[in-house]
């Protein structure tokens, strides 16, 4: 088992991958470490959200992903 990190939208290009598996559990410090410098820089911006297990975190620095959970990195959206 592991934690799956999902890179959405433009973060997919920055990360060079759609997803990555890392060992769980995963907290905010661990996330910043695993995603590489370029993604970490964007993650520190307020407009990038983080979801864990299908819930958007109101405070992403409180991330606490367990083994088997999905962590999604959500840059600014644009639909329609």
């Amino acid at each position, binding site marked *: 088992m592991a934690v799956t990190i999902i890179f959405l939208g433009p973060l997919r290009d920055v990360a060079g991958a759609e997803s990555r598996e890392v060992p769980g559990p995963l907290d905010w410090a661990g996330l910043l470490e695993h995603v590489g410098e370029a993604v970490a820089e964007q993650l520190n911006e307020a407009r990038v959200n983080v979801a864990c297990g299908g819930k958007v975190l109101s405070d992403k620095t409180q991330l606490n992903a367990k083994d088997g959970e999905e962590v999604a990195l959500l840059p*600014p959206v644009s639909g329609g």
Partner: protein
Amino acid sequence: MDDIRLVTGLLDPNQAVDNLAVAASDAGGIATFIGKVRASGVEALELSHYELLTLPSMEALASHAHARFDLMGLVMLHRVGELAPGEPIVCVAAAARHRRDAIEAVDFCMDHLKSAAWFWKREKRGGEWQWIEPRAADHTDLARWSEKSGPV
């Protein structure tokens, strides 16, 4: 009758809106908005979404629209994947007893789908893909409903 869906193949707005008209036969009016890839300009458009959030967020948006407007039915279809010029991207339709509820519900849903729903869009021009962020106007439009500006 609500019809809230992510669509992977070609989106057929007429079919969905006709079904709404039949289901909401006591509605006095049906308002519709169809957003399309412009026929000229881009070579392709790609819409990506996030399985665990996108459809649930559209369903939440539909609930908000029902709470806010007096609706007899709501259609909200959004394409994902790669789209060719001219193809419909999104179709929102609302049936209501009175026309202003129908028109405003469509307006409300479109503003939220544009800049507050979990979609990411990129365009291909001259062979190069480029990610698109919402225009400033989209954020202004959303603010009219004076709600939190984050995605639903």
